[in-house]
């Protein structure tokens, strides 16, 4: 309780500081669009903070293959801050806004093949490294110990708990008999999504990259599930799609049901992709929005600003807790639905 009191006192002081900062920052209005999208979109450098109006960021390597014929270019993204470099620049408007474009003949902007290590790629690398470290470290414990004789404690114990939860609650129940074949993929998907979700909530480097809220990332995850489902689908699965158990006039001459089933093949992973993407993106927007309240109200006087700052911080804490829950739930849901789709593709014909 004493601790809580200190937090409250700190909250009361916060608005004054925020006001002081806001006044220092001259009278610059907060560009809401730039603020929101700048935080959730991918970028060529990792912006950490801004000190005295100067951005502090980690420049990242840009790797582009020109479509105009000038070959492969690798350079640091800090060259792009000034504007054009080797004919490449970041578009400020148009179809390729915030992406690297190359000046083509006639001043047209051409998008090159862009394999840059962007903020999200670096985030993916860091999070993957953390994931590998955690899981391989856990696996190492089992290699060194006889699991039948002793149970792990601490971090390994938490990992064991989570692995067995995913394995028992999701994989075994949803996939069915030959779950063993799919459990590495589903477990990888779960922990991959979970760790990226969590790292996305961490507000500073190396977290803060909006990875699972990026549609390319969720698209790849959904595609993995799509291929797993369709490559290992059994005869019964394909029969259910192409010749389902419905009245014949629904199949011949117009293949109505098969058409619907084939569309369903694609809508399932599509829903996986959109669900994860939208949930995480919305979470980021919400937290950013709540924090933005502090700065948006800075000019409205100390009373309004102070009151809303307290509200914003309390709401922010609440939102962060909610996002941690969402991070888990979305990883869980993605894994569970993947497992269900796999289970459906492995179902045996019902024997009535």
């Amino acid at each position, binding site marked *: 309780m004493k601790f809580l009191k200190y937090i409250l006192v700190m909250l009361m002081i916060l608005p004054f500081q925020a006001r002081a900062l806001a006044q220092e920052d001259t009278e610059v209005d907060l560009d809401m669009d730039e603020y929101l999208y700048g935080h959730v979109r991918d970028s060529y450098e990792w912006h950490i903070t801004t000190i005295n109006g100067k951005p502090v960021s980690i420049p990242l390597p840009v790797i582009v293959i020109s479509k105009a014929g000038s070959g492969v270019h690798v350079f640091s993204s800090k060259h792009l801050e000034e504007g054009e470099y080797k004919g490449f620049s970041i578009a400020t408007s148009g179809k390729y806004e915030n992406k690297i474009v190359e000046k083509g003949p006639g001043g047209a902007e051409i998008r090159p093949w862009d394999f840059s290590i962007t903020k999200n790629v670096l985030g993916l*690398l860091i999070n993957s490294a953390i994931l590998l470290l955690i*899981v391989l470290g856990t696996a190492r414990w089992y290699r060194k110990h006889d699991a039948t004789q002793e149970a792990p404690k601490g971090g390994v114990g938490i990992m064991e708990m989570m692995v067995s939860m995913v394995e028992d609650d999701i994989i075994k129940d949803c996939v069915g008999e030959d779950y063993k074949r799919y459990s590495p993929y589903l477990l*990888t998907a779960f922990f991959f999504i979970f760790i990226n979700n969590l790292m996305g909530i961490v507000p500073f480097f190396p977290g803060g990259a909006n990875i699972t809220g990026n549609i390319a990332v969720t698209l790849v995850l959904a595609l993995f599930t799509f291929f797993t489902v369709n490559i290992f689908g059994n005869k019964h699965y394909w029969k259910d799609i192409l010749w389902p158990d419905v009245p014949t006039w629904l199949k011949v001459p117009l293949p109505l049901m098969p058409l619907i089933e084939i569309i369903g093949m694609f809508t399932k992973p599509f829903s996986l992709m959109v669900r994860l993407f939208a949930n995480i993106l919305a979470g980021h927007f919400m937290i950013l929005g709540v924090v933005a309240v502090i700065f948006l109200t800075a000019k409205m006087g100390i009373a309004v600003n102070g009151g809303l700052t307290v509200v914003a911080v309390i709401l922010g804490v609440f939102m962060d807790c909610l996002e941690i829950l969402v991070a888990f739930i979305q990883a869980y849901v993605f894994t569970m639905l993947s497992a269900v789709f796999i289970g459906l593709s492995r179902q045996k014909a019902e024997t009535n």
Partner: protein
Amino acid sequence: MSLITPDFGLLVWMTLIFGIVFFVLAKWGFPMITDSIQKRADRINESIRQAKEAEERLRNLATEQAAIIEEASKEQTRILKEAASARDKMLEQAKAQARDEAAKIIDQARVQIAAEKESAMRDIRKEVALLSVSVAEKVLRKDLDSDEGRSELVSRFVDELRS
């Protein structure tokens, strides 16, 4: 909107990174963990099953024990009964034997007594005969001392012989 158009470069990187992570974890990560957990779970199940079996056996053992005790007590009473009957029989037998023996001894004694009596009688008779002979001798000697007596005796003998 760039937010909902997947960027090609990121797609490639994500595929690569996720592919590698998946490969590594599927090879050296999760199977190890899940197998170990499975093994432990199996072992625990097995142990529980064994414990249950042991308990079952123990319970059976108790009933078995009770059965053995019951049987033993039954046996005991049977043996006791048998022993009692054997004792009775033996006693009976012994008594009978004793009776027979006694009868035999009595018979022998009787025979012996009879024989003794016989021999005693014989002795007595002999004695009496000797005694009567000596008495007769003494009487005769007294009678023969006198002439009268002698003649009388002779006459009586003669009489006696005649008759």
